């Protein structure tokens, strides 16, 4: 139960061409569940391992609680870690695996038995405590890894993509269980994943990383609705956020629009500084209202005509891929929407869900 302060951490691997982690600073609040999210190679695992003490930074400081742990070995940091491969000791029983950290602390037998039994109960491992890991399934081994970590009552819990080796169905189930467990245990947690669904579901805050840097740190819905860059918008959410490229225009006194092909969308005043340059308009697939025929009246100004390319019925909703002025847009709508390939439809984005980004560097501005 401690705050973590990462201050200006950098690391380049020997022989590496670019830094793995570049001048990163981040504060994780006490009891917060912080998710490090990003594609492979973005540095999230490196950062986690530096928190653990399994790697050492070239520059910067790491503070856990009120202790500077930058140069301390893992055993002195008050951390516990769940590895992607679980790293469950094959030569020890489940009981001894879970008890391992306590045995290292030379706790009395009675206390060890009590605490192991509590942890194995939490993770439904009671029937398996005398078995060896080779006799367990992948999911069960993962629970052992989690039990082994939380039994230590660490100041900080670190998790390196613990769900990525499970099959899709198990992953869904464990995600929910993990969320429940974590809310009961209330340890400061740093969780690494490349799966944006896990990030959205589990995190109190998400730190989106790319190429060794943190692009955005915010609560899940903020990252989802108001991504800081094009990268964040397209990385989070399924389908990714739509980005339409257009040119900012001034239509007169304090009235602006974005020209997309030969159509245009009304734009807020924030666009004023960008007139003449290219913009990206971001809108999520579920925030577009499709119409089978051209809307009239006030609706028509904020709607774009598009040609349907593909219609995918996905059980609970329809995923429509459409083309606006040659650009692809994905729309999620109700299953009985009458769209067919080749048909013209009109797409009306919800105005307060629009995001405005500079095309040159993909960075959002405005709200």
């Amino acid at each position: 139960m401690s705050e973590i302060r990462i201050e200006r951490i950098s690391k380049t691997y020997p022989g590496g061409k670019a830094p793995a982690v570049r001048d990163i600073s981040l504060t994780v609040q006490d009891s917060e569940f912080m998710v490090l999210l990003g594609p492979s190679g973005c540095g999230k695992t490196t950062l986690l391992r530096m928190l653990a003490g399994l790697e050492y930074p070239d520059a910067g400081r790491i503070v856990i609680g009120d202790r500077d742990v930058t140069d301390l070995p893992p055993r002195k940091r008050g951390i516990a870690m769940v590895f992607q491969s679980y790293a469950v000791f094959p030569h020890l029983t489940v009981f001894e695996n879970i008890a391992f950290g306590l045995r290292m602390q030379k706790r009395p037998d009675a206390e060890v038995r009590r605490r192991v039994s509590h942890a194995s109960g939490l993770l439904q491992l009671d029937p398996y405590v005398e078995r060896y890991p080779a006799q367990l399934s992948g999911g069960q081994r993962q629970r052992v890894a989690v039990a082994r970590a939380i039994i230590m009552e660490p100041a900080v819990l670190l998790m390196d993509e613990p769900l990525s080796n499970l099959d899709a169905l198990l992953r869904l189930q464990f995600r929910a269980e993990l969320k429940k467990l974590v809310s009961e245990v209330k340890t400061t947690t740093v969780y690494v994943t490349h799966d944006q669904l896990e990030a959205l579901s589990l995190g109190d805050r998400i730190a989106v990383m790319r190429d060794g840097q943190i692009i955005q740190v915010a609560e899940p819905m903020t990252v989802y609705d108001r991504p800081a860059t094009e990268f964040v918008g397209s990385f989070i959410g399924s389908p990714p956020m739509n980005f339409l490229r257009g040119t900012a225009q001034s239509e007169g006194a304090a009235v602006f629009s974005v020209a997309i092909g030969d159509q245009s969308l009304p734009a807020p005043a924030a666009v004023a500084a960008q007139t003449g340059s290219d913009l990206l308009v971001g809108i999520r697939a579920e925030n577009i209202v499709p119409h089978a025929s051209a809307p009239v009246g006030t609706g028509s100004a904020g709607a774009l005509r598009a040609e349907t390319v593909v219609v995918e019925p996905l059980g609970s909703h329809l995923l429509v891929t459409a083309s606006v002025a040659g650009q692809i847009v994905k729309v999620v709508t109700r299953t009985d929407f009458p769209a067919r390939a080749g048909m013209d439809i009109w797409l009306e984005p919800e105005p307060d869900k629009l995001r405005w980004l500079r095309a040159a560097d993909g960075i959002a501005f405005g709200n």
Partner: protein
Amino acid sequence: MTTVAAPAALRRRPAPRWHLYALAVVISLFILVPIYLIAVAAFTPRAVLNGFPKPVVPVAVSIDTMQAFLNTRGVGQSVINSLIVGLLTLVMSTVLGAPAGYALARFAFRGRDAFQLLILMTRAFPIAILAVPLTVTFITWGLYDTLPAVALVHTALALPTTVLITASIFISVPVDLEEAALTLGCTPLGAFTRVALPLALPGLAAASIFTFVLSWNEVFASVILTVSNRTLPAQVLSSLGDSPLAYRFAGGFALILPALVFIFFIRRYLFNMWGRVVR
């Protein structure tokens, strides 16, 4: 609609299995029959042994040939000497080689390639190079004709292989097991002894057996480095010329016996290594 003939490869009949079995049996016989014969020879009474033609199927079994061999002057002692040298070699090469193998497996350090090159080069050295000049050195140091001297040379022979085997064994122990131990309160040494070592033990044991057998079998250096403190192979070799047949046969069997025993013990390990074949 015309039918298309399947290409020849897809039309093949299942391979005639009995050909393959026959071949395998022939090879097995080639390997086993000589061993059988030497065993028979070693346990045939001397009188029969000196006769001719020799019975391929033993008509009489007796241990007097082996006994005579073991009672020949110097033989019993040489067996003990071989055991001592083998154990010394085993201990020395493990104590020196296992840490080096661990370092090679776990650390990326400057000079690593140079070290690997050194290992490979020494693996390729002919023994003769070692033994002949070392005799001169050992004489100067007063080590000539002692068992530790032989053990030192055997260790030099076994060390490169020991290093590479232990490196490969430690590589097969996932490093995140040791990292997990580090996060659970172990020092690096603790992680090694509690996690890496127990998992590496079967492989290390097999490597030790290999080293022992290597030492037991080694003949050139042993015979050059000793005069009165002979190991078994040195003893047998030096008396080959003027010893009766019975002595030679019994000696041959004594030399083979450890191989048979040890292969028997590590065959499970052999099977684990080539599990896919055995299925």
